[in-house]
């Protein structure tokens, strides 16, 4: 049972508060993603779990045991670093073997274990090479193999895919997912890529300014973002956020008139995802404006229309065609989720 509990942990660098006091429980076998923009404290949080960074106050519990004062080597964790952190003077075999060697495993057992792990990540043909002779993806796999070779209680992964090209990233993502399924080890994963978070996570903790602003399943975070920040951060293309006001149950902004489930409120931001909007010929539709841009993505076309300062994006059929600057109308699909946020506080109203 490898549960990780962060109890009121806080991290300060001098006077700078990097991670304000907060708690978090990572369940056994869970794949928890810490997601947020750069500098939001997600890597610091992970490094505190690893023991690479001291905590200013609070407790870190791993498998029910307080590990605040334990060095990284005694926490039974394995970590994959953004820059891989390989040992350049050792061969791939020696890299993977190193954690086993430190634990005093016999040479014969080590050899078998390295072979088995290398096969798992398809590195068995490259065991005698040095990291400098490998491609980015292969290096990443060495880092991964080194982490899994001794079956730790917890995996920590710090943006492990960010140095790979887009195509390789997708492949490795699937490999990570498969590996987690196969090994079932509690994993904490740091990323700023919301796609990685959505595809990999059991739960996502969205972080901002060191604080977790929402902790939930990817599905829930996508469907019910806790505030404006999460709404804008999750989804690609991101959610349309339109500034306006609600009067007698109708949201109004330039070119937008939409009945909503709220009596009245000034300073409201309405959010609706591009895939929940339909392009229509109906001049009386909820959202109207001039066609600003058309972007074909392959499976669909992103249609952006503009009205005054606000622009709204909808995902239309791949065959959709129209003249730029021609009038264009959008209507929410049946059952579309319409989100309302308080402009001043960013909090979700409905």
């Amino acid at each position, binding site marked *: 049972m490898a549960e990780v509990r962060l109890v009121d942990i806080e991290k300060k660098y001098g006077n700078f508060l990097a991670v304000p006091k907060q708690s978090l429980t990572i369940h056994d076998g869970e794949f928890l993603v810490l997601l947020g923009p750069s500098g939001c404290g997600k890597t610091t949080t992970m490094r505190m779990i*690893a*023991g*690479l960074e001291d905590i200013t106050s609070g407790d870190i519990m791993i498998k029910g045991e307080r590990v605040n004062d334990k*060095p*990284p*080597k005694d926490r039974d*964790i*394995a*970590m994959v*670093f*953004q*820059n*891989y*952190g*390989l*040992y*350049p*003077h050792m061969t791939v075999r020696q890299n993977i073997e*190193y*954690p086993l060697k*430190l*634990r005093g495993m016999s040479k014969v057992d080590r050899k078998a274990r390295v072979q088995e792990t290398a096969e798992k990540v398809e590195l068995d043909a490259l065991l005698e090479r040095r990291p400098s002779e490998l491609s980015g993806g292969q290096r990443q796999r060495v*880092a991964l193999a*080194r982490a899994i070779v001794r079956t730790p209680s917890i995996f920590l992964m710090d943006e492990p895919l960010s140095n790979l090209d887009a195509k390789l990233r997708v492949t490795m993502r699937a490999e990570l997912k498969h590996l987690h399924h196969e090994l079932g080890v509690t994993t904490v994963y740091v990323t700023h890529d919301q796609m990685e978070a959505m595809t990999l996570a059991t739960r996502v903790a969205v972080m901002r300014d060191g604080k977790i602003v929402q902790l939930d399943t990817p599905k829930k975070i996508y469907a019910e973002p806790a505030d404006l920040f999460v709404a804008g951060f999750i989804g690609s293309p991101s959610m349309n956020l339109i500034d306006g006001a609600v009067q007698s149950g109708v949201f109004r902004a330039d070119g937008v008139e939409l009945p909503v489930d709220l009596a009245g409120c000034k300073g409201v931001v309405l959010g609706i995802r591009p895939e929940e909007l339909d392009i229509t010929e109906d001049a009386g539709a909820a959202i109207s404006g001039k066609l600003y841009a058309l972007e074909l993505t392959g499976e669909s076309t992103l249609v952006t229309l503009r009205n005054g300062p606000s622009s709204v994006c909808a995902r239309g059929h791949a065959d959709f065609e129209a003249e730029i600057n021609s009038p264009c109308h959008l209507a929410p699909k049946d059952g579309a989720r319409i989100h309302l946020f308080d402009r001043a506080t960013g909090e979700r109203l409905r």
Partner: protein
Amino acid sequence: MRKTLAYLGERALLALISFVVLFPIAWMFLTAFKQPRDAYSLSLIFEPTVQNFVTVFSEPWNLGSMVLNSVIVATVTVAIAVPCAALAAYSFSRFRVKGRKFLFFLILSTQFIPAVVIVLPFFLMFRQLDLLDTRIALIIVNLAIVTPFVIWMIKGFIDAIPTDSEEAAMIDGASRLRVIKDIVMPMAAPGIMTSSIFCFILTWNEFLFALILSRRDAVTLPVGLVSFRTERGDLWELMSAAGVMITVPIFIMALFIQKHFTRGMTAGAVK
């Protein structure tokens, strides 16, 4: 035309500089193989002899014991200074201790003190300890001279090593000392090698302290050279032969580790 002139000028300047640098060395090598009567002539045609080398190794010059002294003093100094300096450099590079910068400056500032200022205190100290004219005294003095310099040099190399691999090793199960041994030192090896050579050369060539602190038993090669200034005048052919004995080991060492040397130099230069 201008380009050609500039090129020729550049070559001429380089030739001049090379001449100025290499002439004394070439003169020394040639003189070492000359008869005493040819020593003052610049002629390249002479009857070569190895008699000078035979002479310097026999009584009363006894260069053999000086070679031994130099080898022991330089080797032991490097063997102690480099590991200590490597550990100190690692600490300066990695640990955020209060007053770290001041302490580092303090260590470096010892290099600003002119040797003549401290030679007398050293003399008195070793006289008190009854260590005058011993290799131990020379080793201690040389350690004091080279260690700060080597700390500063190695720190530059360790600074350039990313901490990721170290942290990975710590998570893999290594203690701090094990990390230094298994990860940091192999990665800093070119730099450490370079520092060791510098350390060796500095000690090998050290003159002032060796002159003051040694008399008969612990005399090193540079000091031994002085003994060729006799009442019969300067014995240039013998001095050159001894000079060759001093420079050849350094030449050979430089040739062997040239690759490390340049790599180490640039690695340190970038960061």
